[in-house]
């Protein structure tokens, strides 16, 4: 009597096990059919970005994986820069009180009269987008935000993407992980290009 009962339960368990294994395989197959094959990473579309400042605060990394990048071929190299200087600035120099960037991450260097080059020190940049807003309102819009993939841990769900008011974040193919402005944006370079930042 007892052995029969054990056998019945054993049988039930094996049956359920097989059914579950088949169901699991089916679900895995169904999910994999939806799979992309290639991997994807998070990126933000600078055309949609409204510079709300949440990239600096919402990222699971501190400081954020989003940084400001500069499309130099879009820049006007102005002496008075909407992205670099405070509004209504008196003196066009590099004094701290004249700078817009809260962490002084933009380096201003003289090239030739009357042009100045602006470069981002990504180690300092917190991705707040203050300069992007300034550059977009008063300049050519050559400063913009991008997810930097040497920092991004490619979360299952991007915390900034969920907090983004403009729905500017999306998953892009890992082969083309940036949405760049300027000439580089048209050619989509994938190698670690450029000279130096």
């Amino acid at each position: 009597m007892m052995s029969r009962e054990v056998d019945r339960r054993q049988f039930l368990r094996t049956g359920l096990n097989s059914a579950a294994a088949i169901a699991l395989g089916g679900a895995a197959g169904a999910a994999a059919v939806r799979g992309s094959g290639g991997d994807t990473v998070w990126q933000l579309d600078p055309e949609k970005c409204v510079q709300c400042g949440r990239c600096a605060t919402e990222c699971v990394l501190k400081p954020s994986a989003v940084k400001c990048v500069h499309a130099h071929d879009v820049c006007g190299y102005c002496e008075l820069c909407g992205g670099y200087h405070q509004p209504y600035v008196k003196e066009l120099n590099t004094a701290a009180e004249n700078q817009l960037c809260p962490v002084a991450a933009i380096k201003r260097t003289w090239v030739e009269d009357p042009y100045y080059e602006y470069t981002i020190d990504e180690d300092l940049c917190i991705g707040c987008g203050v300069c992007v807003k300034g550059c977009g309102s008063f300049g050519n819009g050559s400063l913009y935000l991008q997810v930097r993939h040497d920092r991004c841990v490619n979360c299952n769900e991007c915390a900034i993407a969920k907090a983004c008011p403009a729905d500017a974040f999306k998953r892009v193919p890992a082969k083309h992980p940036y949405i760049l402005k300027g000439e580089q944006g048209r050619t989509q370079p994938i190698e670690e290009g450029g000279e130096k930042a």
Partner: protein
Amino acid sequence: MIRRAAAILAFLVATAIPSAAVERFPKPEFETGYTMPGTLTPPPRADILENLDVAVLAGAIALASWIVLKRRSRRETFWLMLFCLLYFGFWRKGCVCPVGSVQNVSLALADRSYVIPYAVVASFFLPLLAALFFGRTFCAAVCPLGAIQDIVLLRPLKVPSGIACILGMIPVVYLAASVVMAVTGSRFIICRYDPFVGFFRLGGPAYMMAAGALLLLLGTVIGRPYCRFICPYSVLLGWASKIARRHVTITPDECVQCRLCEESCPFGAILMPLPKKAPEPRVSGRRRLVLLFALLPVVAAASGWIGARVSAAWSRSHATVATAEAVLLEDRAGLEGVTIETETYRKSGLTRAALMQAADLVRDRYVVWGALAGVFVGLAFWARLYEFSVRRRRDDYVPDRETCVSCARCFEYCPKERQKDTGAEAGS
């Protein structure tokens, strides 16, 4: 000088036009040999490394199964657990993990437009498949969330089985809630409220770090609190383990019922033998079962209704619904752009009707999925009730297949195990 003046003039004019992507200043023509620097594009992690993660996961689960089932060694389990904590936790920063992948897979199955990477599919199914064959060996040594709790366990206290049973239903509710949130496209709450990932990344939001610290503190006296009373993936693993083909046994031989292992499990997963009792009269047993099965549709309907109601209120956590409601509130108050979301919506040029329609669509999905999730939770509660009402004979000390995480701690308490060890040593 003229150029400079022109530039400043242009600047002043440009302040009036608030638009991006306008070339207000012409591209300069440099006279010196200046070359424009390009934008650095550091590449993301290579695809091949994602596949490596899956291979390490598969290898670690296989190794864990072999160690707990064949080698029966706590020490080896511990070292594998430590390796996995370092690899999946601190090196891979706890992402993507099988626990969170529940959400990706459910979203992929519900939403055809969602694209799920193969690595995520694999990390969801491998531990479940292993659990169907060998029990929860993934929990034993591979899961970094389990490992970080396992190493802080110093003086385990016993949680009364009644309380443990009630708390053990939290993961079912959490699983249902996280699936609803995932399939409606709201957010992945398992990842958002993952208490330990902040430690792996060496920094994170304050609430996450505080919750993690609290759980680890609690974990010094209560074994694996997250695994037992929160982890939504543990529900699926537990069910798979329940019908597993093979499972860890406390004794390598025949149980002699010495009671030495009785207190050895820090997770309260050892089932004691049930003393023989006079069989229950057939009539009362049958009446109870009939009542239980009569209760089944009532429970399912009630929990489904509750799920739908709760979810309808909950739909506010979806960005579209929140924006739509905020816009309506603003309209009523005669305000504009109170939040960044409403301001962005007003700038986007989307019509009011389109926004409201999108919000209604999300609300409908919430109600449907909420009802399904409610039925699921109701059935899980009912199944637990059913388990209580059916008495099975048990002669030996056995692990509870559903809650046992195959940590291999109880082995060394068994005299038969020691006998085997010394026998092997004498033989060699």
